[in-house]
């Protein structure tokens, strides 16, 4: 099995990114490329569903950090859902749960994105 595989699907205005496996310095380029492609395509509302993400290092956090300003400048956002305990611990320990909106599941994240579009 590859260290990381990434799939993307579009649900309404939201691009849902599903990384599966490990994001570290070896695999981060693929993750970064996937995020950058969405931004280049003008898809600024992004949900990273982490249900199959077993692990993320600071390299992965850096990839998200590197694009957060760009998507927010375009009235989009990067949302996170379904974080496993160890992945949540990394975000939470660094205080990043204040910077990103984290949802327990994709349904809640989509509802939040939907109500935002309507407001």
């Amino acid at each position, binding site marked *: 099995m590859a260290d990381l595989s990434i799939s993307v699907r579009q649900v309404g205005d939201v691009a849902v990114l599903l990384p599966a496996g490990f994001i570290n310095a070896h695999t981060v380029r693929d993750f970064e490329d996937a995020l950058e492609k969405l931004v280049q395509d003008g898809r600024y509302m992004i949900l990273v569903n982490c249900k199959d993400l077993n692990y993320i290092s600071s390299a992965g956090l850096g*990839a998200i950090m590197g694009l957060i300003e760009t998507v927010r400048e375009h009235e989009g956002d990067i949302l996170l859902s379904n974080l496993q305990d160890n992945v949540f611990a990394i975000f939470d320990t660094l205080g990043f749960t204040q910077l990103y909106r984290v949802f327990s599941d994709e349904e809640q994240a989509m509802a939040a994105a939907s109500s935002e579009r309507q407001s």
Partner: protein
Amino acid sequence: MDHAQFRLIIPSQTRYLNLVTGLAKRASLVAGLDDAAAAKVSIAVDEAVTNVILHAYGGEGEHSVELELRFTEQALEIHIWHSGLGIRGDQMVLPDPKEYIKHPRKGGLGLLLMSRFMDEVQFKADEVSGLNECCLIKKIS
């Protein structure tokens, strides 16, 4: 538990990170840490070895990174040696998370994660061998 130690030498290539972090996690469980603590040790080791590969060796893959795991009754120690550029403890500047959140940017988080997830993080240079060392210590509670 008897004191025990063993060593692993890997090429300075990120493709081996997963191997090393898996080992660190398993070693943590053997040492008596719980799953959550083992995951944190695993992340800290990832960050330390990544720093060696990307920064100490500048991404050059033909060097070696040597890891030693030491099990004692009080702690799990992970020593990481390399012959690249070293940093001293007084050069270890941790970003302020609050400032980081106000001004997001890439990089700088690895040391912070290491220091938050381990009980001790030490950087040393051995003048005799010429090797630099990063030592990570997790206490067994």
